[in-house]
């Protein structure tokens, strides 16, 4: 089946975007842009535990909240539950 003009344009734009992104990423890496010479890591440290001596980045007293810990937990759980219900509702609608 022949592809519509719209589909061809979409495909071409997508391919050009992918190529541009890859060239850009390659240029950044080749020129070592965005790195901090004092740090022995970069974007390759995917997770916080991958960062050497991570403790120095989050001192325990970096911020002192006046609100009790349990309030944070309750809000955390309540918002999570609410969003789960919203997700279910959106998934159900339009079926």
């Amino acid at each position, binding site marked *: 089946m022949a592809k519509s003009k719209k589909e061809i344009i*979409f495909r071409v734009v997508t391919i050009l975007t992918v190529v541009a992104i890859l060239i850009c*990423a390659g240029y950044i890496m080749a020129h070592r842009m*965005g790195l901090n010479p004092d740090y022995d890591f970069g974007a390759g440290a995917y997770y916080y535990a*991958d960062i050497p001596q991570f403790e120095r980045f989050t001192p*325990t007293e970096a911020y002192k*909240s006046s*609100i009790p810990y349990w309030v944070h937990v309750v809000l955390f759980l309540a918002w999570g539950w609410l969003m789960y219900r919203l*997700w*279910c509702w*959106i998934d159900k609608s339009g079926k």
Partner: protein
Amino acid sequence: MKSFSDFWKKEDWQAVWLGGIVILIACIAVLTKAFDFSALKFSTWGFGESDTATLAALGKQFAAGAFWVKTLVTVAVTGVLFTLGVKLQGGSVKEYVPAFLGLFALAFIVRLVSAEFTLNRYLEWAFWALIIGLLISNTVGVPKWLKPAIKTEFYIKTGLVIMGFSVLFSNIAKFGLYGLGIAWIVTPVVIIFMWWLGTKVFKMDNKPLVITLAAATSVCGTSAAIATGAASNCKKTDLTMAVSISIIFTVLMMVFEPMIVKATGMSPIMGGSLIGGTVDSTGAVAVAGSTLGGEAEKAAVLVKMIQNILIGFIAFFVAVFFATRVDKTGEKKVGASEIWTRFPKFIIGFFVASLIASFIIQPLAGADQVSAINKVLDQYKNWAFVLAFTSIGLDTNFKEIAKQMQGGKVLWLYLIGQIFNIALTFFAVWFLLSGAIFPIPTLN
């Protein structure tokens, strides 16, 4: 549970036990200081441009006896545990052991390559594991004897249980309601938006891919993609796609986002929080934040720390959602026992590990000890994930990956989702930290 023997015969439960054993030994090793349980990690090496990252540094590491002892410990621990799992699953030990040693040798090469200075800074192991695996499978082909070791899900699930120990609940309050507002209000909204965009607008049938990509975009890249992908039972090519897109865009965002923040004249605390909420990998967040100064760096890392906690919760809700809504057949409501049957049990292990670290080990032994334990566990987690990603590469062909692009929809889903993520996070940052509505917090 259909049978009590599922507890030790099924891959999901085995991941819980094996991950638990590694955590237990690491805790004993660190807390008693009786022995060194740390796994192998390569020093960063390079081609002589930096003082520390040189080929000589690599040579020095290879010449040290400790390096080979750690290699032996790593291969022994992972080999014995996974072989035990395979044996209990009814597999052939005779076939698995040589295959595992072959796979470990490939994983060793992957980690060696990804320790090169530039590759280490930007792409690291996930990318190179996929590339090396794909190169082998699409050129010379995977030898028959190596195939018994390709057990992607088993390695991923075990790695995730180990990772659970590093998810500390105390971090929820590290930046008060400001951090919670930026990290937790925005994240699920972005996930739901991307779900709606992917399934309703783009009409993508591959729902596990949509949710894996959404989690990678809104939570924290590779780690979130691995957890959510396993929770939604996504295909290996889905995970490949989500992780590759996330890694490449992280490189771009790490460089361009601080530039944009500077150009707009945003305050350091706002700019840092925006970076923390939107740049995928934690390492990139710290580096990008540091270019805006100390306060921005702290804000960026604090927001990202909260997002790191979300991995388990998002994976849990995704698992429940897929068990009750996506994987069900017919209109009949799924009962509790059916949900339990379908529910990926390794998530229980992930949560239990997280709860033990947060509410038992941390209060009793202190944050420093938990940090020391996690330093040991992180390498085992990485080895498990490298084995998994190398397996994915070995088990995938380029045609399958091209098909996964679904005519470009995957790319646009990520791009539009990420733009929405940045816009919404910017709004939350402005609302909470601009001083227009709430007082601006001070970071020490």
